[in-house]
């Protein structure tokens, strides 16, 4: 198929940036979206033009590195990662608009590449169980009901891509943050630090400049891993019970 691409080009963080249009032909529907961009980049490179920069690594939907805002939706029309989006979702003659994630907390580094270190800092604020290596009990010592383990796993599947932030009109990071808080709040291993974790992670989230949640559910609808907004409700409960009863933070 033949396509027209409107791609956001921006030299670096300081640059203003703007859209540039490219025509591309000979795209097969078996290609992934990123392979389509590879074709564009081979083209540009051969012509001596700077290729379009975008983040990607595993190309199998798990590392969370790919992050394109396609036709007004994070990761495009399907509820999947950009790397798992295939060209069979488009038709000949389509005009496709490609932008980076837009959020104050995710500054653009170049073209479609953004800086998502804010997510790392939220995890650093408390997204862990404070155990050192060694000296832990046998893995089967604490039985965990299957239903609880499964729920925790559902939350733990988050790949940290940031689509939830990109989807939200307030650029809120509630879905991301709540997924980790939920996972650890559900499991017995996470109980000891349950309160302090919720407080610290929420505080960091706010400090990074992510917006407030207004419950529109856009994040859940766009999450490539289907992380549920029930996690946000759980986080809110965790958070409020923490601030009510704790004296820290």
């Amino acid at each position, binding site marked *: 198929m033949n396509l027209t691409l409107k791609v956001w080009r921006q030299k670096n963080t300081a640059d203003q940036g703007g859209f540039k249009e490219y025509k591309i032909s000979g795209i097969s529907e078996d290609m*992934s979206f990123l392979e389509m961009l590879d074709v564009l980049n081979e083209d540009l490179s051969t012509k001596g033009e700077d*290729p379009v920069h975008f983040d990607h690594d*595993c190309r199998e939907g798990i590392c969370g590195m790919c992050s394109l805002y396609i036709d007004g939706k994070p990761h495009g029309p399907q509820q999947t990662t950009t790397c798992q989006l295939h060209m069979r979702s488009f038709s000949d003659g389509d005009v496709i608009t490609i932008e980076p994630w837009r959020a104050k907390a995710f500054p653009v580094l170049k073209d479609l590449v953004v800086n998502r270190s804010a997510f790392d800092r939220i*995890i650093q604020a408390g997204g862990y*169980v404070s155990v*050192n290596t060694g000296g832990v009990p046998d893995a089967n010592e604490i039985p965990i009901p299957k239903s609880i383990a499964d729920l925790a796993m559902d939350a733990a599947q988050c790949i940290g891509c940031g689509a939830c932030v990109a989807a939200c009109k307030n650029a809120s990071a509630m879905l991301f943050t709540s997924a980790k808080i939920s996972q650890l709040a559900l499991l017995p291993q996470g109980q000891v630090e349950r309160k302090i974790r919720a407080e610290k992670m929420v505080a960091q989230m706010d400090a990074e400049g992510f917006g407030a949640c207004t419950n529109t559910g856009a994040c859940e609808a766009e999450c490539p891993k289907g992380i549920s907004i029930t996690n946000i409700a759980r986080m809110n409960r965790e958070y409020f019970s923490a601030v009510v009863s704790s004296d820290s933070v």
Partner: protein
Amino acid sequence: MILDSKIPEGPLAEKWTNHKFNVKLVNPANKRKYDVIVVGTGLAGASAAASLAELGYNVKAFCFQDSPRRAHSIAAQGGINAAKNYQNDGDSVYRLFYDTIKGGDYRAREGNVYRLAQVSVNIIDQCVAQGVPFAREYGGLLANRSFGGAQVSRTFYAKGQTGQQLLLGAYSALSRQVANGKVKLYPRTEMMDVVTVDGKARGIVTRNLVTGAIESHSAHAVLLCTGGYGNVFFLSTNAMGSNVTAAWRAHKKGAYFANPSFTQIHPTCIPVSGDHQSKLTLMSESLRNDGRVWVPATKEISEKLRKGQIKVNDIKEEDRDYFLERKYPSFGNLVPRDVASRNAKYVCDEGRGVNETGEAVFLDFRDAIKRDGEDTIKAKYGNLFDMYQQITGDNPYQVPMMIYPAVHYTMGGLWVDYNLMTTIPGLYALGEANFSDHGANRLGASALMQGLADGYFVIPYTIGDYLAQNSNERISPDHPEFKKAEVEVSERIEKLLSIKGEKTVDFFHKKLGKIMWDYCGMARSEEGLTKAKAMIKELKKEFWSNVNVLGGNEELNQSLEKANRVADFLELGELMVDDALSRNESCGGHFREEYQTPEGEALRDDENFAFVSAWKFLGEGQEEELNKEPLEFENVKLTQRSYK
């Protein structure tokens, strides 16, 4: 140089315990006086960085991705082995050790592998304590599944995302140490060289991938946890960014490279669909628990199928050849990866392949769905089935999956001794970046085990032994050796940018990949390898005279990143070919057509090749020198591997 593996004396089961007692310790108050650099934040790197920081060392952790959480360990699907024997099915440390040695076709060290099996049990405990949500039974205890090359159920898993969950566990431990100020993170940073001072590794030179800044970092020891080099084949299941650069630069600074040609070709990947293909996607080996591998019994039926004259579901039972079950009745579809891959190649070479290119076999769940119901299969493999459908457009609940082998893992890597130290003092290699535990073929669910074993439970002990014997005096990153390395790195970048030729970096990478796949892939021969060597030399020359790297250094420049990596792959490719040529036997993933049994199985030559090949770099343009570390088997009897 005599390669001293430093395997401790004593009975197999006591070696590690004795060694831990005998190594020197760094006093707790002194640990903060030592700095350790960790390159790579996958399972090995993240677990090592976190554990060393917990002990009190100052750690700097580097990764080329935008976050340490994205390292390619995250993509491992199936599971992690551990000799817990929770299933009461006869597993033990010795059995895991034995399966691993046998699975590796007797080309790994007994001592290392036994230690791996021993610490496997601690890994599971550690991960559970971190909050890794492993799959569980209704009673609340941990669930297990089986993997290839084993007759017990010892694989722990978290849906089809075990690597992700284990990595996020290690990443959380790492994040905690970042918060504690014991680890400093350097994301989007690529290691460009190792710096040695007085023969010891004292730091690295890096390139900031956003600004292009070339910087030096000094330390008392350097850990390379930089993964494997499967991307030398261009098409592989590795992430796009996975590369050999760190390991290769270390090699050129004096670290021996061991068994470079030992490559694992994974049997169950989604077949190539066209020239645009940028990477191959693995379908977890766990699928072979329930999926049956087959092709039509005759070439004629396959041909009709390829032409679309018949549909797969119309093929009658008697016209289906379940070739693995037929040839290997006791292991069936669960034979080790090398055996499964080779057999898929055989049937396709016979013209019985099932897709348009003729390079695919079926992996069929029809019988499993009939037996257990669609819901059960969905619960076990749902996300894998969805992924398959997403990529191919086919629904595997209705038609069998199509699979074909693809490059997945490299057993070869930097040579290390029992302490995981390379031939450069103070330079360590962990996880897939080293060569040590999988011999000539790695068993499924053992990569995660090894990465975490090295990082959580081996290096914290062995690094102390080295540091305790070395002064804690710090060295300035302005030391002349660092300055010299910085200049070399900058010159190389300049050179790449100044060629301004006509061909893109990918052009060269694809060409190299094709040479490697055709001549140094699933089957190798003296004739083919000799040809490949000449072709790679030629290609390397062309690269350095005709590659076009756009943009400049002082910016985010993905073509420059790629060019820098491909330049190293070109050199590595030649060494892999040399290694494959020098090993006149077949073993595990290394299959030399000249050396096979009448049934087409790998024919080892234990008398002449029971050794590790460790290659020493002698200088640009020179042939490398082969050093041999003999492998001694005191506990296991070497036999022809049989999975019949």
